[in-house]
C-alpha cells in the first residue's frame, strides 16, 4: 500500500535497490519514458515505504520505477523508464 503522499528522495531507496544492482544505481541517470527528462535516480520522488515503493519523475510526475518486496521475492518494474545510463569512467 502506498500511503505516503509526501515524497522522499530516490536516494532513500538506495538500500532496497542494492538487492538488485551490483553498483549504486541511485547515481545512474534515469530517462523518463513519459517526458524524456534526465536526472540521477537519487533525485526522483520516492513514494511508499514498506513492501512497495514507486519512484516518480520530478519533472512530470510519471511513475518511472515500481518495486515490490514480498518477503519471498523482489520485483522491479522499469516500464516507466526509457533508459538507465551509468558513468563507467570519471571525466
Amino acid at each position: 500500500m502506498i500511503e505516503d503522499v509526501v515524497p522522499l528522495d530516490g536516494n532513500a531507496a538506495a538500500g532496497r535497490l542494492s538487492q538488485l544492482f551490483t553498483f549504486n544505481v541511485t547515481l545512474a541517470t534515469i530517462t523518463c519514458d513519459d517526458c524524456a527528462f534526465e536526472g540521477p535516480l537519487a533525485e526522483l520522488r520516492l513514494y511508499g515505504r514498506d513492501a512497495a515503493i514507486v519512484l516518480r519523475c520530478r519533472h512530470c510526475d510519471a511513475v518511472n520505477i515500481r518495486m515490490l518486496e514480498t518477503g519471498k521475492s523482489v520485483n522491479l518494474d522499469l516500464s516507466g523508464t526509457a533508459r538507465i545510463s551509468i558513468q563507467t569512467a570519471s571525466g
Partner: protein
Amino acid sequence: MNGLLPWLLATASQLHEETADVKTITFDVPGWRGHLAGQHVDIRVTAEDGYVAQRSYSVASSAGPDPRIQLTVERVEDGEVSPFLLDELRVGDSIELRGPIGGYFIWSPGTAGPLMLIAGGSGIAPLMSMLRTRATASSRAPVRLLYSSRSERRIIYRRELDRLQGAGDGFVVTHTLTREVPGGWMGERGRIGRAMLTQRGFAPSERPHVFVCGPTPFVDVIADHLVAIGHAGSSIRTERFGPTGESK
C-alpha cells in the same frame, strides 16, 4: 556499494535524550564496514504478527570505520518505527539494520570549496555527521550552517554546535526559530527565506556545495529559493524525510 548489503544485528549501547522528542541512539554494529558523512541506514522492525516496517535514518556520527554508529531519532506521532525506538528500545536490545547506504548526499573532507548546510529540525542529523567528520579531519573548509528549529528547546546538538563554532576554524552556525522566540534571543527568527540565505550563506559565486535536509515541504521551498538566488542546481543536494515539520 556492492549488490549484497546484508541486514546486520545492531545492539543499542547508549541512549541520549537530545530534546523532549529526540534521542540519539548509539548502536554497536558488528560487521559494519564504515561510512561516509551523509550516508544513511535502513532499519527494519518486525512486529509480533510478522508485519515489517522499514525506515531510513541518517548516520549522525563522524565518518570512519568505527562499528559504533549514532542515529538521532525524532518522534513521529502515529509513526510505526520512531515510537518503538524512543519508548521501547533499551540498552542491550537489538534491531536489524542495513548500511551504509547512499552515494548522493555525501561529503568528504577532501572536497574542495565551501560547504553550505541548511537544516530543518532533525534534518540536522546527516549535516552533523559532516561537521563532526570535518572536525575529526581538522579540515578548515569554510562552513556555514543555517538551522531552523521551532523553538529554542527543540534545537538538537546545541552545545556541540556552539563548541564547534568556538573553535574558530571557519565554521559559523546561524539558528533561526520559527514559532517560539524567547526574550533576548540573538539569532534569526522566522522561516529561512531568500534574504537569510543571501545574508547568512555563501554567494553562488563562491561555488559552495549545498546540502539541505529536513521535512519535504521545507526542502522543496529552500531548494527553490537557492535556485532563485543563483545557485546551480547541480551544486544542491537534498534529503527529504517526509510530511510535516520536524518529523522523520
